């Protein structure tokens, strides 16, 4: 897909009015947001941010030591954020980064102050409501030394069949001894084109846990976020759970660069196609020792569809320890029969196994989001049986 596609979408002219109370949102939109992990009842969260079509409409922090701003406002307040804005991401990477560089609509700026440990997650929603909307946001996350924060970011459209394009630049700065858990849930529509471009850096002793969940249709999604573990003892783990129904084209991977001794990286993905095409990538590059990386990539084909798994390891130093395991397969008949002997019919047995397959141990996921995921998996089962 090239830049010529941009003309199909509106990248300006849809700047909505600010919202004072999330309860005033259309209940249908609130449900769509909830399916992307964003709860308009803010009680369980430390901060909430909402970007609608072309502009930020709501921004509220309820926590000391946690700053959340529209990126446009942050740029103004901090003189263009010279240390953070476009410092990791390259505007010239491709047509989409160029488009994002030229078209800044907003996005979220989150900063956890030094030493502040934030218990309740921050939630952020990038929502597309108008038809043929082109969304271009730039997010910046800074976790200062020894701070801890969990960000849940949900991306959704207001109707499942709407046309749209989303370009999202994200830059993550996890400083010395800091810990960032970043959970991204996508709930797009069948005609939505999505191009996130993310880069992060983790300093000495920092931890980055990334969860990515996408269980609903999308027209085309391509992303390959890169994380640099630059400080001694930095660690990261990427969990991805993805489903590609008929008509979805998904090309997703994670790239982790081990640039310091004692770093550790883990990439775990579970992919299911029920008719869509999936490229599931992963790359761990080790440049310093001792360091370790492991990549686990499992795919399940239910019905039609393609899963192309591409795990890559690149060792560039003696003493490096990198490994991977990849498997693309089907549900074992033996497992179905075992569950059927316990009284589950074939459909129940299948969905139980699928649910287990998708059940990577996602760290620190709030109960409510878990329930949302459960209901999404259930829905998947019904769609499959309907087909």
């Amino acid at each position, binding site marked *: 897909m090239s830049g010529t596609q941009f003309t199909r979408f509106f990248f300006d002219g849809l700047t909505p009015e600010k919202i004072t109370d999330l309860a005033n949102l259309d209940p249908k939109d609130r449900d769509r947001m909830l399916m992307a992990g964003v709860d308009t009842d803010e009680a369980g969260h430390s901060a909430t941010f909402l970007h609608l079509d072309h502009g930020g409409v709501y921004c509220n922090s309820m926590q000391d030591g946690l700053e959340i701003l529209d990126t446009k406002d942050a740029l103004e307040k901090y003189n263009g954020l010279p240390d953070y804005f476009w410092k990791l991401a390259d505007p010239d990477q491709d047509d989409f980064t160029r488009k994002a560089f030229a078209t800044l609509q907003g996005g979220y700026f989150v900063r956890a102050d030094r030493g502040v440990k934030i218990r309740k997650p921050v939630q952020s929603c990038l929502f597309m409501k108008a038809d043929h909307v082109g969304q271009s946001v730039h997010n910046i996350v800074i976790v200062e030394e020894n701070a801890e924060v969990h960000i849940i970011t949900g991306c959704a459209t207001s109707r499942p069949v709407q046309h749209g394009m989303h370009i999202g630049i994200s830059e993550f700065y996890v400083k010395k001894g800091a810990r960032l858990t970043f959970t991204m849930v996508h709930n797009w529509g069948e005609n939505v084109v999505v191009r996130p471009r993310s880069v992060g850096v983790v300093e000495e002793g920092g931890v980055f846990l990334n969860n990515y969940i996408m269980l609903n249709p999308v027209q085309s999604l391509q992303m390959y976020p890169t994380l640099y573990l630059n400080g001694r003892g930095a660690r990261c783990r990427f969990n991805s759970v993805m489903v590609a129904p008929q008509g979805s084209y998904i090309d997703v991977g994670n790239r982790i660069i081990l640039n310091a001794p004692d770093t550790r990286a883990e990439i775990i993905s579970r992919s299911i196609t029920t008719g869509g095409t999936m490229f599931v990538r992963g790359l761990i590059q080790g440049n310093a020792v001792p360091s370790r990386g492991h990549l686990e990539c499992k795919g399940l084909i239910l019905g039609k569809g393609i899963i192309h798994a591409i795990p890559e390891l690149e060792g560039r130093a003696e003493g490096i320890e990198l490994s991977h395991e990849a498997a693309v397969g089907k549900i*074992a008949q*033996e*497992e179905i*029969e*075992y*569950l*059927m*002997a*316990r*009284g*589950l*019919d*074939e459909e*129940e*047995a299948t969905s*139980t*196994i699928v*649910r*287990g*397959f*998708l*059940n*990577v141990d996602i760290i620190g996921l709030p109960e409510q989001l878990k329930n949302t995921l459960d209901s999404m998996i259930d829905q998947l089962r019904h769609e499959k049986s309907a087909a």
Partner: protein
Amino acid sequence: MRPSHYIILYNIRISDQRGKKYTMLEVKDLHVTVGGRRILQGINLTINAGETVVLFGPNGSGKTSLLMTIMGMPEYTLTKGKILFKGQDITEAPSYERARLGIGMSFQRPPTIHGLKTRRLVALCARNKAVDIDSLAETVNFRDQLDRDINAGFSGGEIKRSELLQIMAQQPDLLLFDEPESGVDLDNMALVGQSIQSLLDRDRSTTAGLIITHTGYILDYIKADQGYILFDGTLRCRENPRLILEHIRSKGYSECVRCLQEAKVS
């Protein structure tokens, strides 16, 4: 053989008079093949409610196949014969229907299902029954393993206790146990044996068991009524299970096989 109407009449009687003994399982002239190979060749077996039957037999004699066929596992092809459960013909019924009717089986080598927690599977086994999974697990010393993926890296003994736990949640009327004691360490042996007996005792009038044992250790804990040796695909030597066990222990299976083969020739 009883005329078929007898079973129907009998069934009506039991629905009216709970507590009276009735036929739990009736296997008639059962012939089974696995992958084209003949395994069972004319099994006849009746188990009444309240009864526990023990199956002995050398390795490869078809003991597991018999249980698998009663459970309705699809790999086991029935070429001839009938299976009746509480008078109902279940010969063609799929395994999940048999499970829902009240047949439950403890498997020897169940598969690992990644991501499926033992706790969740136990809950699924309970279906609509309210069970306290933690305290149930406590009784078979399995509470610490509830949050592990089912059968993932389980030791032989852990598999037995996990299978038992699932059956305890399921509360079937007919309990099929495939060597429930194999791999179980001595510390847990009594626990497993007593748990099986208490399942059988749950309601003597509506419960029955069919248990495969190779070593016979399980007989120290359960009250067994009837014993058989499965040999060459048929049931032989109907006897008091303790006598059979004593015989096998003192003479060994080889003597047992020799004697049975002799009987076949004569």
